[in-house]
């Protein structure tokens, strides 16, 4: 008798579990729909032929005469290749050097005692709340009159080579490294630089990944400053080029859609490839 009862209870619990799981999947899918639906619409528009209607009641999601013509047209009329190249160059150089410089700077703040340490640190922290747009007017003047790199990608790279936020994050990470490791290195007679390079950096690898990713995303998506600096079309980065695209193809929603898709796909591919690192890196971003 008991066995049958137990079996019944098991069955109902198992059934409830399955229903719950299905319910959760439904919820997840609904949220996913909300997240990607605008993109689905744009992708669909980008493949619509000249006879496919864009605006209709009810909306037509599947193009009846799908074509690649819109992509070809946009590719020919706008230097999308240059946009990508410039964005990649700017973002990669920024990430590499920014992580390098901020990791260098974080070490003394975390593990060394020296005169002026706290003053400088709090001064830097104070600058964190300065809105970046405030600095654009003087930076504009600097770019034109002093550094003469107006309308080049250097104008985008140099100001981003060090950010206070990254220094702060890496300082937190370095502080979690046990002092014994560092003392051991010092006893062995290693220079501070060697300690930094061979001992500390490997240990804080996840934090470095986090900082790299945050900087990557921020630099890739940056629009305001690049739009001020870049005016020759072949020098533009992707975001500035996209804004231009919208202006250029106002009469051509299919072209705009094709351009947007072309802009998003590569970063999506990279994201998918590095997805695990992205997530792991981001989740390590905030630990107290």
């Amino acid at each position: 008798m008991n066995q049958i009862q137990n079996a019944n209870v098991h069955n109902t619990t198992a059934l409830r579990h399955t229903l719950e799981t299905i319910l959760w999947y439904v919820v997840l899918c609904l949220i996913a729909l909300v997240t990607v639906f605008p993109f689905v619409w744009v992708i669909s528009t980008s493949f619509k032929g000249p006879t496919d209607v864009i605006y209709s009641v009810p909306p037509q999601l599947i193009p009846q005469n799908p074509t690649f013509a819109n992509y070809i047209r946009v590719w020919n009329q706008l230097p999308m290749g240059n946009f990508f190249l410039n964005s990649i160059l700017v973002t990669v150089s920024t990430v590499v050097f920014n992580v390098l410089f901020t990791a260098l700077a974080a070490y003394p703040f975390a593990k060394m005692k020296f005169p002026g340490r706290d003053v400088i640190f709090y001064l830097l922290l104070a600058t964190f709340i300065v809105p970046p747009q405030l600095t654009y007017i003087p930076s504009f003047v600097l770019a034109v009159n002093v550094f003469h790199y107006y309308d080049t990608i250097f104008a985008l790279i140099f100001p981003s080579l060090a950010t206070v936020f990254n220094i702060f994050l890496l300082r937190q990470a370095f502080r979690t490294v046990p002092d014994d490791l560092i003392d051991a290195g010092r006893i062995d007679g290693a220079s501070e630089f060697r300690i930094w390079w061979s001992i500390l950096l490997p240990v804080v690898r996840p934090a470095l990944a986090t900082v790299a990713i945050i900087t990557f995303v921020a630099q890739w998506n940056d629009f305001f400053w690049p739009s001020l600096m870049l005016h020759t079309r072949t020098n533009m980065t992707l975001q500035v080029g996209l804004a231009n695209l919208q202006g250029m193809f106002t009469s051509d929603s299919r072209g705009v859609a094709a351009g947007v898709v072309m802009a998003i796909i590569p970063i999506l591919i990279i994201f998918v490839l590095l997805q695990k690192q992205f997530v792991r890196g981001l989740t390590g971003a905030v630990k107290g």
Partner: protein
Amino acid sequence: MFKKRFLTPYLFLTPALIIIAIFIIYPIVAVIYYSFTDFSIVTPPEWVGLRNFQQLVNDPVFWQALLHSFIYLLVTPVLIILCIILAIIVNRKLPGIHIFRAIYYIPVISGSIAVGICWRLMFDTNGLLNSILLSLGIIVEPIQWLAEPAYTLPIAMLLTIWMGLGYYMMVFLAGLQNIPEELYDAALIDGCNNWQKHWHISVPGLRPQITFIVVISSLAAIEVFNEIYILYGPLGGVLNSGVTMVFYLWRQAFRLQHAGYASAVAIVLLVITLAFSIGNIRYLERGSEAA
């Protein structure tokens, strides 16, 4: 010894300090100076004392911009609530959950310009939203979403929220995964249901993440520009309904060539963000001490 105590630390600091000195410290000082001048970038600055600030006080568009920037702050609580819920939902060991997490992250990495264009195509008078509403019979005539002053900020804010969901969800997810299981088990034994479980354990446990996101998200809200520009163009929305502080700064400096006046706006913005961040951090830190 001197070398070790003094020189080495500063050697490490030098590259970053130089960059920050040139591109952040110097501009702050410069902007403070410019705010007391009449300056159009093409012509050299001319000292005018407090005139820019006096003009600011009497400028109705400036006050509008201030108001709009504060209204925009509403995205922060919405984001926090939505993202905590989202994080709780995806914090399960269901097969394929990684795919969903990745999908929710797509708007974040696509960039505000690409997403803004998608949004614009949807909200256009002859766009997707109107055609859906019309075919469902909810409206009879297409609504001119992007030309209604009352809808300007909400649509932009919706865009910001939509773009931030995935990003902040991940942060909260990490925080959730740091909360020890025992706390939840203890709660279950005590007879808490799911809702109480999360309210009493998850939310307090996420305090550091909440602080972090409140600070970052509110700063981003006060400083919003990209969304307004890509949705409404240089006009900034009908009746200046989308003009925020930074947008006004841009218009004054780079459209009307009044860089001195724009610098005054920038100074006000700085004071606000300063007060805000200090206030935020104090309030939340105090809260965590009490907890």
